[in-house]
């Protein structure tokens, strides 16, 4: 899995049904819902942009945990292991998205 430091122009216009790989030789998912500059959903994993004011936007990420919590054992696994570790991964990912978006915005303003 290789991180991309800058937004790729060819990935900026996803369409419903597009295939998105989690990394090189990794599993993939399909884009199920998309509205440019508003929301983007991979299966149920959804990224939503909520404008706050002229200079701030809130990035909200949600995923359908009911798919993981099918039994009591799954639920125990979900709350004690999956969710806390996933939270660390996902918050790092969101910080990365924020940094890239803000860096891109700064570059655009400087030009």
């Amino acid at each position: 899995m290789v991180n991309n430091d800058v937004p790729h122009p060819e990935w900026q216009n996803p369409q419903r049904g597009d295939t998105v790989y989690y990394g090189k030789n990794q599993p993939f998912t399909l884009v199920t819902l998309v509205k440019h500059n508003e929301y983007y959903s991979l299966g149920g994993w959804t990224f939503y942009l909520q404008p706050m004011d002229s200079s701030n936007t809130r990035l909200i990420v949600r995923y359908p945990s009911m798919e993981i919590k099918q039994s009591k054992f799954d639920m125990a696994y979900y709350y004690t292991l999956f969710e806390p570790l996933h939270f660390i991964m996902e918050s790092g990912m969101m910080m990365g998205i924020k940094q890239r978006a803000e860096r891109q915005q700064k570059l655009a303003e400087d030009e």
Partner: protein
Amino acid sequence: MNNNQPNISNKNVAYNGAIVAIAAVFAYSIIIMVYILIRSSSTIYSIMPNGERSSILWASGVSVAYSIVIFSLFMGALSSVLGVMAAAFLKKLLLCFNRQFQYNKAISISFITALMLITIIYFLLFTLLKDWMTIKYIETFLFWFLFPAAIFLIVCIIGGSQLNKILKAQL
């Protein structure tokens, strides 16, 4: 007591190594938790409107704290193995190369042992995980690699010097 055989048992050394490693992980986790809570809370406080602020602050705080507690339990378990190894190595090396139990020599041996173990661990991590790991982002490099390595180095040096003191006292 036999003058050449200090009586601190290997089991005792291993136990203390594990405890020190777990304590170091928990101490580091608390520092990280406080840092993240302050950083995220200040961002939320400055951006979120009044009505939503307190609930988001609570949700963020609980999520951060809970995730770090769980993660530190796992890291504590893993680090205890490393602590046992480091303590066992230190005892062997101190008995082999520092027969007079000199303080400065004990510090040097502890430093080299820690550096060697860190190099092996990071080499294994980067070899096994390859593209799954990156250190090119400053926060990742600092919080996941440099600070833990620095703490391990410091703990090893302090632990090594303490072990040296115990071994010397038992002669």
